[in-house]
C-alpha cells in the first residue's frame, strides 16, 4: 500500500513537473502615476507598454508575460513603497516605468540592492546617470540635461542673446535649468524655481520675467502645469513679444488643452511621432487605431522599454536568472527602437539624436507635432563621465 502511494506520488510529481516549467511567466513591474492630475501620463505609458506586448503576441521568448502596474501617486515615498512591494512580494524579473526624477531617486536603492533588472521609461535624474549608475539600470529615455542642452544649442543657432529661465523646484527642474545653461552661449538675465507640484499660478514669476526684458524665456513645465503656463504666458501679454523655448512642456497629452497657444513654440525631443522608421510608423498608427489618441514621447519610451526587455529575454531564451548575459545583450540596444538606432554609453544611457519639434494643424484641423530639424546627432549626456562603469 505504502509502495503504491509512493509510485503514485512519483507519477504525480512527474506530471506536475513539466507543467510547472511551462507556467514560468516573465514578470514585469511597472511603476508610474495612475491617479491625480498627472494620471494621463501614466495611462499613456501603460497603453504603449500594452501595445508593445500585443505586438509581441504577449509573449517573450515563448513565455507568457505578466505586467503588474503600480501607482506612485507622484509621491517619492509611495513610489519607493510600491517598488519594494514589487521586488519583495511579487518577485518581478524586471522593473520599468517612472515618470518623475524625485520618485526614481527614492526608489532606486531597493532595485539596485536586489539586483533587479531595471529599464527607466522616462525619469532622467542626473545622479542616476552619473555617480549612482549601476550595471542593472538601463534607460530607455535620456538624462535630464540632454533635452534642455539641445534647446540651448538651438537658441544659440537662433541668435538669442538674453534669456529668462523658469522651472519647478524639484530634482528634474534643477537638472533642466542646468542643462540649458550648459550650452546656452548668451546671458541669463534671471531664473525662478517654483514650488512643485502645487504652485500653478505663475503670475509673480511672469511679472519678473517681463521686467527683466529678455529676448527669450525658457521653461520646463511637464504635464498639466504646461497647459497652465502657456495660458498665463498669453494672458500676461507676453506671447508674440518674447519668444518661448520649452523642454517637455508641449506634448501630445497637453497639446489638445494648450490649443493654438502651442503653435510656434519651440521644443526639443529625442522622439517625434513622424520619425521615418518602419517600427515607428507601425507604433504610431496602431496606437492611434487602438486608443484613438496620438502617443506622446512618454508612450514612445515605454514602448522602447518593453522591446528592450524582450530583447534581453530572447537572448537568454527565457532563463531570466542569467542576468550578466541579459545585460550584455541590452548594452547592444539590439532592437528596433522607434526613435531610430542608438548606442548605449558606459552608463547605459542612450547616445542619441535630438530633434526640434513644433506644433501645427493637420488637414483635419487637429493639433499635431512634427520634426522641424535635427539639433544634435549622437549626443551623450555629461553625467556619463561621473559614472565609474566602463
Amino acid at each position, binding site marked *: 500500500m505504502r509502495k503504491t502511494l509512493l509510485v503514485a506520488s512519483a507519477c504525480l510529481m512527474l506530471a506536475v513537473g513539466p507543467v510547472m516549467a511551462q507556467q514560468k511567466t516573465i514578470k514585469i513591474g511597472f511603476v508610474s502615476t495612475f*491617479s*491625480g*492630475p498627472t*494620471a*494621463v501620463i501614466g*495611462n499613456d505609458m501603460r497603453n504603449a507598454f500594452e501595445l508593445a506586448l500585443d505586438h509581441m503576441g504577449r509573449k517573450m521568448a515563448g513565455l507568457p508575460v505578466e505586467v503588474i502596474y503600480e501607482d506612485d501617486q507622484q509621491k517619492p515615498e509611495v513610489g519607493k513603497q510600491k517598488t519594494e512591494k514589487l521586488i519583495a512580494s511579487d518577485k518581478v524579473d524586471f522593473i520599468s516605468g517612472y515618470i518623475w526624477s524625485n520618485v526614481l531617486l527614492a526608489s532606486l536603492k531597493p532595485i539596485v540592492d536586489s539586483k533587479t533588472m531595471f529599464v527607466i521609461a522616462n525619469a532622467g535624474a542626473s545622479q542616476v546617470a552619473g555617480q549612482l549608475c549601476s550595471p542593472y539600470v538601463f534607460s530607455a529615455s535620456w538624462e535630464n540635461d540632454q533635452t534642455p542642452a539641445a534647446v540651448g544649442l538651438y537658441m544659440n543657432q537662433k541668435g538669442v542673446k538674453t534669456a529668462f529661465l523658469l522651472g519647478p*523646484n524639484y530634482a528634474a527642474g*534643477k537638472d533642466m535649468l542646468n542643462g540649458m545653461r550648459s550650452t546656452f552661449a548668451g546671458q541669463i538675465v534671471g*531664473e*525662478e*524655481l*517654483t*514650488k512643485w507640484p*502645487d504652485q*500653478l*499660478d505663475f*503670475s*509673480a*514669476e511672469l*511679472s*519678473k520675467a*517681463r*521686467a527683466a526684458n529678455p529676448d527669450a524665456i525658457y521653461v520646463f513645465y511637464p504635464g*498639466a502645469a504646461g*497647459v*497652465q503656463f502657456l*495660458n*498665463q504666458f*498669453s*494672458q*500676461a*501679454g507676453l506671447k508674440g513679444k518674447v519668444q518661448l523655448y520649452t523642454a517637455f512642456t508641449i506634448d501630445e497629452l497637453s497639446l489638445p*488643452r494648450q*490649443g493654438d497657444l502651442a503653435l510656434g513654440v519651440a521644443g526639443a525631443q529625442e522622439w517625434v511621432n513622424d520619425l521615418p522608421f518602419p517600427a515607428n510608423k507601425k507604433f504610431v498608427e496602431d496606437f492611434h487605431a487602438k486608443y484613438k489618441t496620438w502617443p506622446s514621447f512618454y508612450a514612445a519610451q515605454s514602448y522602447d522599454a518593453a522591446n528592450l526587455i524582450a530583447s534581453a529575454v530572447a537572448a537568454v531564451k527565457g532563463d531570466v536568472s542569467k542576468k550578466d548575459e541579459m545585460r550584455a545583450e541590452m548594452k547592444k540596444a539590439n532592437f528596433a527602437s522607434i526613435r531610430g538606432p542608438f548606442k548605449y554609453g558606459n552608463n547605459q544611457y542612450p547616445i542619441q539624436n535630438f530633434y526640434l519639434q513644433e506644433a501645427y494643424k493637420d488637414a483635419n484641423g487637429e493639433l499635431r507635432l512634427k520634426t522641424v530639424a535635427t539639433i544634435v546627432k549622437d549626443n551623450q549626456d555629461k553625467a556619463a563621465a561621473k559614472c565609474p562603469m566602463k
Partner: protein
Amino acid sequence: MLLFLEQCLNGLQLGLLLFLLAAGLTLIFGIMDLVNLAHGSFYMIGAYFAATFTALTGNFIFSAIAAFAATLLVGMVVEVIAMRRLYGRDHLDHVLGTFGLILFFNELVRLVWGPAGMNVPLPEWLNGHFPILPGIEYPTYRLAIILVTLAVALFLYILVMRTRIGMLIRAGATNREMVGALGVNINLLYTLVFGLGAALAGLAGLMQAPILTVQIGMGENILILAFVVIIIGGIGSIRGAFIAALLVGLIDTVGRSFLPDILRLLLSGRSASAIAPAISSMLIYLLMAVVLVLRPEGLFPVSNK
C-alpha cells in the same frame, strides 16, 4: 518699483481669492462650530460646473453665474444629507466625516468628468491685458477677479452687518442656543450658511478655472492656505478673514518674488536660488506662528464662549 506694484496686484488678487474661500470656512466654523475639510471640494465642484457649462453654452459669464447657483445647491444638499449628522459631535468626527467627503467628491468627479481635467476658455474681451499704468500691462481677467471679489466682499459686509439674516448669523456665532430658544429656525439658517459658504468657495474655484486647469484635487492645496487665513484672522470673523487673506496673499506673492534677490545679496547665486523657494513658501506659516504667539485668538477674535 513698477515691478513691486505689479507684484502687489498679483498678491491682492491671490489674497481676495483666498478671502472667498476663507469667508465661507470661517462662517461655517464660527456659526456652526463645524470643521469642514471638504470646503476645497466645493471649490473644485464650482470649477467643474463652470467648465461644463462653458463647454455647453460657450458663454463664460452665464456659465459662471449658473455654476455659482449650482454650487450653492450642492452645498445645501450636502448640508441636509451629510452635515446634519455631524452637529453636536466631537471635532474629530467632523474631520473624519468631511475628509470622507473629500474622497467621495474626488471619486465622483473622476467618474463623471474623467481623470484628464478640463479647460475653460475666456471670451476675447477678458483674455487680453490692460495698461493700468504706463509700463504695466496687467491681464484683464485678473483685474476682473479683483473687482468681482471686492464686490462680493462688500456684499458680504452688507449682508452680515446690515440685514436681518446677517443679524441672525452674527447672533448664531455668539450664542447658538439662545438664538434657537428665541424661535429662529436654526436648521434653515445652518443650511443657508453652509450653502453660502460652499457657493463662495465655488465662486473662487470657477474664477480660478480659466487661469489654472480644472482638475481633481485642485481645492486641497488652496484649502490649507484658507485655514491659515482664518487662524490668522480669528475664527468666525469675516473682517479678520478679509485682512488676513490680503496679508497672506501679499506676503506670499511679494516674498516669492523678491526674497531670491535679497538672498542673492547675502549668499552665492546658486545656493540663493535653491533656498529661496523653500523659505518663501514658509513665510506665511511664519506669519501664522507669530500671530499665534502674540494673539492666540487671531487678529480679530470673535468675543464669545
